[in-house]
């Protein structure tokens, strides 16, 4: 009851202070009182302004509380009435607080400067009791938070205290099977003449209310001149309504509408609109998010029929009328008149070219000032006006010839031409007496400096290329990549050189390497010889032993030993430092192998086995010899 009284009181106060035309108000309010320790409760600061400027907002000192969430928001209220209109800006700062201790706490005033004057809210007392003893907060009317960014009807923390309430949405229908959120693109037509308007609308269908909508990829309309059209909005957000599609009820929102005018014949595809939607919980945490994508649309643009009148502008497709008028038809020499040439109608007015100004003898004609007024309803239209400043240089009568404008009428499917009436101008006075500042060549000067033509002081027009041309050189100049370009080549060259040197060095055969290689080869052959012996093949086994000894000794001696006589072999081995017993043992082993080759039957398996052992011992003995001896050999 106490909480209800508090709520009613604060609501009444807020209503009283935020009524239109009541001036500025700056208030704060508490969601409920008392509150429990550790329980979250809402607190709101609200500023309402009529044509005033707000600055330097300072939030209250929440000593004794912890802020668990905060959300500033801004809205504009406009009311038109018999007594005139009101526009009001409302700034709201919503806080979600948690009391840290029990007792009677105070939230200090918030302050803000409005048009230089400082305003403060009242101090707010909060009674904090033990957790669970505080009365529960009033239940919101809807379970889903209403209106958050992108969607109307928002009061994030005070769903029931919203002073700017809107009708409560009807209960949402049960979700039939197969329903899903989706984006839809609806073109008014898919085949049109070049320059003819095609209206394309992108729509969103939702199965249930969402809190956020954010487009992630805008559709590209290459090949078209595009004009944005108005879509219904609700207080700056999307306008949601219920709609039945294929027997199913959806929440429907138009997202975007464009009027497209094909520039050249051909087939063009409009890329899909993509958007993210999401739902959030009470504290703003996302509970569901989804990425939606509309379908692409392909349009066929067909050329206009043949038989266009002379001077026809291909952009002039639709329905148009034209008028020409001068602000006065009697002037003195040196006094300027203004000619307004105006085309009204429906079509791509921004792109159409107005009829050119003919050359007028005795008149100085300045560049026109072009003004376009556009209506962005279902059909793009409006008016395009060219304002020419004409300066007579001598007296006499002049007739401005009729202006004509041709266009393709899409309703009739034929070309039409509209014309203005000729205009008669009378100039009086003498050219000689009119010499002065007005008749000299106009220079750039402000209007305040007296009658000179401001139209000459303009800039050249916008560059509307379809894609942005970037300067890669300048981008590189500002980028650290330039340092990389400077460092990389010498570094690479150095690395390649180092690699080359390393490879050369690794490729050279050292004494140790050569010995290891010989040893490996010998072991391999002895292993093969043992395998032959194990299988009873004595001749191949001894053949391997001969090969291993020949190769090993060739490597040691440094020249082939196969062709040496036994005496030469003995001399060579002795020169390596081999003792007589090692030399004789080597020669005997080789003789045994020779015998096996020429008289295989004379060899016993035991003899072959001993030969293998001996060969191994010989190799080890040669390995033990000092390397200098081998080198000398």
């Amino acid at each position, binding site marked *: 009851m106490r909480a209800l009284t508090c709520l009613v009181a604060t609501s009444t106060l807020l209503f009283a202070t935020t009524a239109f035309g009541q001036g500025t108000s700056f208030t704060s309010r508490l969601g409920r009182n008392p509150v429990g320790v550790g329980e979250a409760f809402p607190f709101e600061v609200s500023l309402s302004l009529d044509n005033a400027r707000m600055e330097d907002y300072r939030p209250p000192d929440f000593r004794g509380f912890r802020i668990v969430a905060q959300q500033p928001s801004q809205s504009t209220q406009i009311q038109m009435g018999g007594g005139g209109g009101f526009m009001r800006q409302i700034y709201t700062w919503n806080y979600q607080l948690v009391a840290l201790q029990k007792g009677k706490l105070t939230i200090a005033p918030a302050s803000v400067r409005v048009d230089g004057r400082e305003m403060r809210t009242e101090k707010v007392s909060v009674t904090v009791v033990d957790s669970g003893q505080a009365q529960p907060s009033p239940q919101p009317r809807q379970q889903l938070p209403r209106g958050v960014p992108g969607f109307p009807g928002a009061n994030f923390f005070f769903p029931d205290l919203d002073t700017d309430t809107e009708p409560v949405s009807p209960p949402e229908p049960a979700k039939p099977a197969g329903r899903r959120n989706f984006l839809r693109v609806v073109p008014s037509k898919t085949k049109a003449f070049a320059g003819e308007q095609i209206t394309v609308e992108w729509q969103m269908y939702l199965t249930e209310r969402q809190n956020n909508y954010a487009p992630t*990829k*805008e559709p*590209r309309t290459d090949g078209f001149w*595009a*004009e*944005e059209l108005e879509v219904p909005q609700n207080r700056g957000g999307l306008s949601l309504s219920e709609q039945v599609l294929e027997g199913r009820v959806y929440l429907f929102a138009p997202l975007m509408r464009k009027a497209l005018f094909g520039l050249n014949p051909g087939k063009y595809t409009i890329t899909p609109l993509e958007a993210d939607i999401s739902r959030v919980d009470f504290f703003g945490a996302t509970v569901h998010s989804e990425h939606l994508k509309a379908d692409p649309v392909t349009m066929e643009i067909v050329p206009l029929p043949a038989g266009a009148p002379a001077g026809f502008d291909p952009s002039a497709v639709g329905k148009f009328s034209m008028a020409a008028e001068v602000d006065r038809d009697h002037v003195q020499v040196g006094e300027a008149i203004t000619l307004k040439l105006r085309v009204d109608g429906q079509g791509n007015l*921004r792109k159409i070219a107005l009829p050119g100004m003919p050359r007028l003898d005795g008149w100085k004609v300045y560049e026109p000032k072009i003004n*376009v007024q*556009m209506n962005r309803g279902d059909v793009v239209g409006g008016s395009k006006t060219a304002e020419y400043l004409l300066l007579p240089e001598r007296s006499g009568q002049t007739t401005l010839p009729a202006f004509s404008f041709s266009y393709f009428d899409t309703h009739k499917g034929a070309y039409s031409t509209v014309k203005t009436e000729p205009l008669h101008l009378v100039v009086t006075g003498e050219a000689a007496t009119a010499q002065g500042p007005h008749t000299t060549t106009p220079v*750039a*000067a*402000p209007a305040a*400096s007296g009658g000179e033509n401001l139209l000459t*002081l*303009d*800039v*050249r*027009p*916008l*560059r*509307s*290329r*379809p*894609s*942005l*041309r*970037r*300067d*890669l*050189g*300048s*981008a*590189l*100049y*500002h980028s650290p990549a*330039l340092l990389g*370009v*400077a460092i990389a*080549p*010498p570094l*690479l*060259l150095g690395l*390649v*050189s180092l690699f*080359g040197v390393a490879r050369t060095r690794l490729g050279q055969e050292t004494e140790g390497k050569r010995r290891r290689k010989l040893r490996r080869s010998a072991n391999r052959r002895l292993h093969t010889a043992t395998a032959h012996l194990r299988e009873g093949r004595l001749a191949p086994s001894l053949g391997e032993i001969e090969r291993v000894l020949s190769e090993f000794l060739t490597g040691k001696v440094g020249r082939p030993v196969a062709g040496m006589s036994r005496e030469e072999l003995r001399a060579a081995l002795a020169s390596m430092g081999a003792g007589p017993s090692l030399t004789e043992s080597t020669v005997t082993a080789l003789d045994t192998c020779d015998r096996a080759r020429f008289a295989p039957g004379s060899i016993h398996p035991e003899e072959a086995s001993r030969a293998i052992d001996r060969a191994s011992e010989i190799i080890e003995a040669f390995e033990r010899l000092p390397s200098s001896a081998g080198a000398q050999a």
Partner: protein
Amino acid sequence: MRLLRAEMAVLGFALVVGAFASQARADFLDQAWMRGNEAHLRGDYAGAAAAYQQLDKQRVVSADLYYNLGVTYFRLGQLGRAIWAFERALVVAPDDEDARFNLTQARKLTDQRAHDKLEGAEREPLWSRVVTFFSPSTEVWLFCGLYLGCFVLLFVRRRLAEDSRLAVTTAAAVLGTTALLAGTLLLGRMNLDRIPFAIVLPDTVTVKEGADSNFRTSFEVHGGLRVRVLDHEQDWVRVRLANGLEGFVRAEDLGLL
């Protein structure tokens, strides 16, 4: 060989990923560009300026972007900002005739409102004019082309027979020397940019004797004036005029070139 294949695969993957990322960024930038152009053509100059500023914040360097931003600021009547944007367009593309014309127009208009005549203004020193003779883009491409060409020749030289090396060595030396000159120009420009120029953005700015609004006012300058930025002190900037006068202005009142 296997190692080489793995390296090539990694390089290829990186190139593909880089190409995709680059394309996505290009699409995003093009959309913002089109949004700005469409807003401008609709007459929504504030919307157009916001779209172009978004591109500027993305560190897009484009003469077209600054040119359109300048035209938009001109339409909004913000002549100081328009001059800044046209100056930036000319920094990127010094031979952009349209930007030069528009800059002249904007300066004429500001001169009619208020003109800062600097007594004893000094001309830019010769070295400064030399290093800014070409655009940054030209200097970068010149340097990169010559420098990389020199090293390509050095790589090729390693593969050549002894008798063919002299000609290639001579060519590499010529390219290397020219690259050194281009690099000197580039370094000179970078050194010049270390003390950047800025344009006064609002119509009138009071220049203070110190970095605080409570300091005495030294003098006033007007929108479009070109100044040198010497130092930053929090949100204040010490500036020097072409005639040597110095003072402090708020950083938000200057647009860096």
